[in-house]
């Protein structure tokens, strides 16, 4: 902050917010299980009845919440929803990224019935500024369902998480919900690349905010959180389904863009003893599917903009989303939901705003049908 007055005002605002935040946390207890996205499901059926051909003609990828259609998979036990990567600038509610974030909140609030909770997938802010986080809070506090927060690198590297933790609490935590053990990680820990170079906090933030700025360090969960995770999971029965939230994918896809977690193997080793594990991550701003052993991985869409697919390393389980048309700021963006089945396996829905919705089911990942499809390669990336 550039002057004392602004700083004081902000501190005041943050104190106020902290009490509101407590209310938010309290409201997280409120859950219920009901049907979900009834309207979309009906229309998916209708579209099928009308013989509407879906893009790509892919039979292997369900459309429009078609995961609801009857099948061999166990009944849906509960659902939660997500929005992620809003990348807000403090430029008011009319800025395109704010409008997009509000659109996602409207989507989430229109879900009928409501999800058990909403995960925010990280990168609420663009440059980690208090006023950006504040704007983000003003937008997401309108979400009717309880909200779980996750941190992204854009929230963190101006003040190393000081404001974010003040507003939203711990950057890693766990909770249990209807028999599923959920863990939220901070996977965007970077080794200190700034002190030796004498970078200011603003320079450090600018470097980290550049996806392709290779002056930064690779993301990692880090030893401290891995120890915590080990202890946390030690108390959990190996048959309990796990859902892990991380901002970066918990595997190694493409290092130059930090589509990567440097200690992914160590974290995966901690998850390996569990029968059913799903990892849901942000950061990549795209439909992204992977499976490593027993672990299913799913990306989350950004509300702000889509990243292109990495030039190499794309998992063969990924059937790519369509290439977006940048004229439409919503193309390639969106939000989504997750259906947790009775056996703890999850079907991941991508609610694209300007493309056809897609659902990637546990069944598709388990059966290997996605892998054998060889993936779908879009236009030249």
């Amino acid at each position, binding site marked *: 902050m550039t002057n004392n007055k602004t700083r004081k005002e902000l501190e005041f605002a943050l104190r106020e917010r902290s009490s509101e935040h407590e209310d938010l946390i309290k409201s997280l207890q409120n859950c219920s299980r009901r049907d979900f996205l*009834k*309207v*979309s499901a*009906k*229309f*998916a*059926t*209708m*579209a*099928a*009845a*009308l013989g*509407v051909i879906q893009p790509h003609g892919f039979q292997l990828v369900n459309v*429009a919440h078609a995961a609801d259609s009857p099948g061999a998979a166990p009944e849906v036990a509960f659902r939660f929803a997500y929005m992620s990567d809003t990348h807000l600038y403090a430029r008011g509610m009319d800025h395109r990224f704010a409008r997009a974030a509000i*659109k996602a909140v*409207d*989507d989430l609030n*229109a879900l*009928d019935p409501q999800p058990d909770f909403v995960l925010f997938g990280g990168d609420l802010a663009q440059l980690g500024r208090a006023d950006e986080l504040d704007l983000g809070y003003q937008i997401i506090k309108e979400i009717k369902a309880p909200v779980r927060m996750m941190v992204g690198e854009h929230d963190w590297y101006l003040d190393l998480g000081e404001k974010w933790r003040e507003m939203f609490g711990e950057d890693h935590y766990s909770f249990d919900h209807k028999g599923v053990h959920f863990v939220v990680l901070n996977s965007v820990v970077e080794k200190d690349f700034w002190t030796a170079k004498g970078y200011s906090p603003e320079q450090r933030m600018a470097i980290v905010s550049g996806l392709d700025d290779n002056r930064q360090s690779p993301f990692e969960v880090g030893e401290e959180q891995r120890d915590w995770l080990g202890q946390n999971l030690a108390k959990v029965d190996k048959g309990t389904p796990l859902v892990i939230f991380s901002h970066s994918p918990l595997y190694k896809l493409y290092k130059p863009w930090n589509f990567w977690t440097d200690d992914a193997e160590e974290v995966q080793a901690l998850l390996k003893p569990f029968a059913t594990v799903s990892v849901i991550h942000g950061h990549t701003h795209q439909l992204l599917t992977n499976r490593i052993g027993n672990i299913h991985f799913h990306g989350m869409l950004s509300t702000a903009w889509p990243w292109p697919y990495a030039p190499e390393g794309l998992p063969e389980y990924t059937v790519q989303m369509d290439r977006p048309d940048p*004229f*439409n*700021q*919503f*193309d390639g*963006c969106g939000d989504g939901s997750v259906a947790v089945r009775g056996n703890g396996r999850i079907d991941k829905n991508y*609610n*694209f*705003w*300007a*493309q*056809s*919705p897609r659902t990637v089911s546990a069944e598709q990942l388990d059966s290997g049908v996605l892998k054998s499809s060889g993936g779908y390669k879009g236009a030249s990336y």
Partner: protein
Amino acid sequence: MRIRQQASKFIFAAGAILLLATPATNVFARGVELAVPADVIPPEIPEDNQLTQEKIDLGRKLYFDTRISTDGTVGCVTCHDPKHALADGRGAKTSAGVGGAMGTRNTPTVLNAAFLSTQFWDGRAATLEEQAAQPLLNPIEHGFTNTAAVEARIKELGEYAELFKAAFGSDAITLERAAKAIASFERTIISLDAPIDRFLAGEAGAISQSAKRGWELFNTKARCNTCHGHIGAFPLFTDEDYHNLGVGTQALDFAKVAREAAETVAQGKSIDELVLGDAEASELGRFIVSGLPKHLGAFKTPQLRNVALTAPYMHDGSEATLRDVIDFYDRGGNDNPYLDGGMRPLGLTEQERSDLVALLETFSSDDLERFSSLEQEKPAH
């Protein structure tokens, strides 16, 4: 058939008839080729409905015959009037059918419809054949309740058996054949010679200075060209895609209307009947056809040829003048949860708005006068 040759740039001598080498049973089948400018890709003719003079002649008679309606007052010509650029010239926002029943949609022109890959504002018909049949069976257009009733009426008139025989080889009168004949006739209604075409061909004096400024704006600041861009090989000024601009969506509860519409369609009501008879269901736009959330409130980008002659505008006729349309876009359309991500306020000045209107006026064909005698036009044997 006589299609006037406008200029040397027309590659094909209009009205030329190719005698096909056909077996004796098919002597009636004489192929007709459409006259289009050299750099324009000609319309697609369906495999099962090759263009012949006999079908065109039959289609013409059917098109103008208002007796083919339940109260004997409505023909294709009623809403697609050659005196009004083949659109509805009766002054209402939307079109009236039998008994003065008002529909929900503004009538698109038949002029150059042959080039379009879908028909109707929601694209629910893929071909002119499909399009031509639907109004006959709509209770608020021609008013017939079933196919047999249409066929019975045409038979009653006693003038058609010979024409059907000439066109199709036997005198069976069916709705399918009638639709094929009407579609064949409509395919000949082509006009691509407007001042804008001459301007784009290099005749600088073809349009006014104001219109020239409008053309620059059209392709830049006013952002028209992304959806209405001019392509030499397909010069209709439409991307043939569907966009939610917020027309008519104010205060509409999309979820509720969509749910009800889905149920109605599931119970067997035709989309055509539903959307023309139900003002709220009409506002679902392309969604009712595709079932995709991205199509909620999204309507097809109409062609802009002769747009100055086909007021009022938008799918519901809600904008009275071209100036109103420009003002609508200038404010970024009407906000709603599904507004297309490409819409944004334009900040056009008074002069710029006038320039855009002046430009749109140059999209009017010079030769529309020839369509005033469309009904009498006889083949150039």
